């Protein structure tokens, strides 16, 4: 897609703002719509009340929430029981190269990083085109059970890791929820809707899907039975991110952003990336947040996580500049592994960036480059 075409598509997608009144300049205005002192006091009181409620709820229900439970294997994919080294970590490597004012190039490669030495090797057997899925599918997760890459993220996998789902959008005709059985490669249309569908999670309680009318209106949340395709109305409060987002709202302390999720955990960065400013990294799970790092942008550690995968070793993260992988475990804290083996910068580009995203559990042994 050309840059101009992308601009047009983005503007179509986001739309143009409707006519709006100009803001009032100068000191706090006195009209009821615009920040009168009374409304400010009410807002302040409500904010205090909200904070009290949130803090109280945390104290009540999460008195130990500053400490996450010990890292446990993901429920999505069976994890190797061993947590020792050497092991090889599945990763999705993204490469970006570009010049100022010109279009850049982007590519994705699946492979493994041998740890603890940190050498990356591309997996020549990573193709996923033999499996059904969305158009232009790429390897997203490595399955130890199946000994192969899957065209799905960890959040798309069934609880037993043997199936994955994807949403097929049918334009004005609605959406289809597809389930793929990796054993038979059968692509089953599980559920159809006349609305636009988005997928939330797949756990033992079923598949949580939200839909919205294509031209706007009130959306719905559904829980789909993965065996029968039966849909039952669900509450929006069942959406996995809700408790975490509430907690995030209670943390305070400046701008924040997420830099990874596996459907259970959320990696939260609080603070900007501006050099010299302070920031913190949290892992949020089930309404509780654990601060795993606090530092200053550009300091000696400069922990800037990208992605997340949890296995018996702990919590794996990439780093935004591709130089390191990180492992965090409550008992041992944060540990980094220097990564080598990334392709050199292609000639003719001013900028070149590599990032490794963890895409599976660290598998005992060493990857020799001939398929896992």
């Amino acid at each position: 897609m050309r840059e101009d075409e992308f601009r047009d598509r983005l503007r179509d997608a986001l739309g143009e703002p409707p006519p709006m009144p100009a803001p009032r300049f100068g000191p706090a205005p006195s009209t009821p719509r615009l920040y009168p002192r009374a409304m400010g006091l009410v807002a302040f009181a409500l904010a205090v009340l909200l904070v009290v409620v949130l803090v109280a709820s945390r104290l009540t229900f999460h008195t130990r929430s500053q400490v996450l439970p010990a890292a446990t294997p993901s429920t999505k994919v069976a994890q190797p029981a061993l947590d020792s080294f050497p092991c090889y970590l599945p990763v999705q490597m993204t490469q970006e190269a570009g010049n100022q004012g010109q279009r850049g190039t982007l590519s994705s490669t699946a492979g493994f990083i041998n740890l603890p030495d940190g050498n990356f090797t591309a997996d020549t057997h990573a193709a996923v085109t033999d499996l059904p899925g969305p158009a232009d599918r790429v390897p997203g997760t490595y399955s130890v059970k199946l000994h192969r890459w899957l065209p799905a993220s960890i959040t798309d996998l069934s609880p037993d890791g043997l199936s994955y789902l994807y949403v097929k959008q049918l334009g004005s005709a609605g959406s289809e929820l597809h389930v793929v059985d990796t054993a038979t490669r059968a692509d089953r249309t599980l559920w159809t809707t006349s609305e636009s569908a988005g997928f939330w999670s797949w756990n033992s309680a079923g598949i949580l899907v939200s839909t919205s009318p294509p031209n706007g209106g009130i959306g719905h949340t559904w829980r789909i039975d993965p065996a029968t395709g039966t849909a039952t109305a669900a509450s929006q409060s069942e959406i996995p991110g809700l408790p975490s987002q509430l907690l995030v709202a209670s943390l305070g302390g400046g701008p924040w952003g997420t830099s990874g999720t596996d459907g259970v955990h959320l990696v939260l960065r609080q603070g900007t990336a501006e050099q010299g400013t302070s920031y913190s990294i949290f892992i949020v799970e089930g309404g509780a947040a654990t601060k795993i790092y606090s530092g200053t942008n550009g300091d000696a550690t400069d922990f800037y996580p990208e992605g997340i995968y949890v296995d018996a070793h702990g919590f794996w993260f990439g780093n935004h500049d591709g130089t390191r992988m990180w492992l965090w475990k409550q008992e041992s804290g944060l540990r980094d592994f220097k990564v080598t083996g990334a392709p050199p910068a292609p000639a003719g580009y001013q900028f070149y960036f590599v990032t490794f995203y963890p895409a599976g559990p660290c598998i005992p042994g060493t990857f020799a480059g001939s398929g896992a």
Partner: protein
Amino acid sequence: MRETARGERNELPPPRIGKDGVTARGAIAGADADDMFEALVAPLVPAAQRLAFAMLQNQHDCEDVVQEAAFKAWRALPKLQDDSNLRAWFLKIVANECRQRRRSRWWSVVKFASPRDEPALAQSDENEASLDLRRAVRNLPDEMRLAIVLRYYMDSSFDEIGAVLGVSAPAAKARVHRALVRLRVEIPEVSDDA
């Protein structure tokens, strides 16, 4: 209607206060500060509204954010540096207010975190590709979405994006690239050539 809106956007005056142009404090000095402030900032309001709308996709939130940004900009006037780029400075305040809005209102956070897309403005000609792209942009982390919006929705230069994000122009370029990579997860055709 959309074409008209685009036309209006294209007819917006270029930034009056640029990297090599008149600096904010210098222009304000010697005049009635309030009047001058309004004279300088008012032309930037359409850009601020577009940025807020692209980030929040909600008219009322957008109005509130721009109003709050204007008020905070007025209050922060004494802190302006002589070499401040007023447009970038004001857009940065707007961007911060957008972040604050999303952070402080859990229902907004849920709305933006949700895969559900409830178009703020119903468009009869809106196709599924637009819905997918809007969903993908909304699912981006704050700074990535801001970088994409500034570059491809606001037509900002990397210098301006860097000024709004608080990073260098090359770093801003990297942010845009990184955001495109992230977008590609959901919209595979986006990043290859964009």
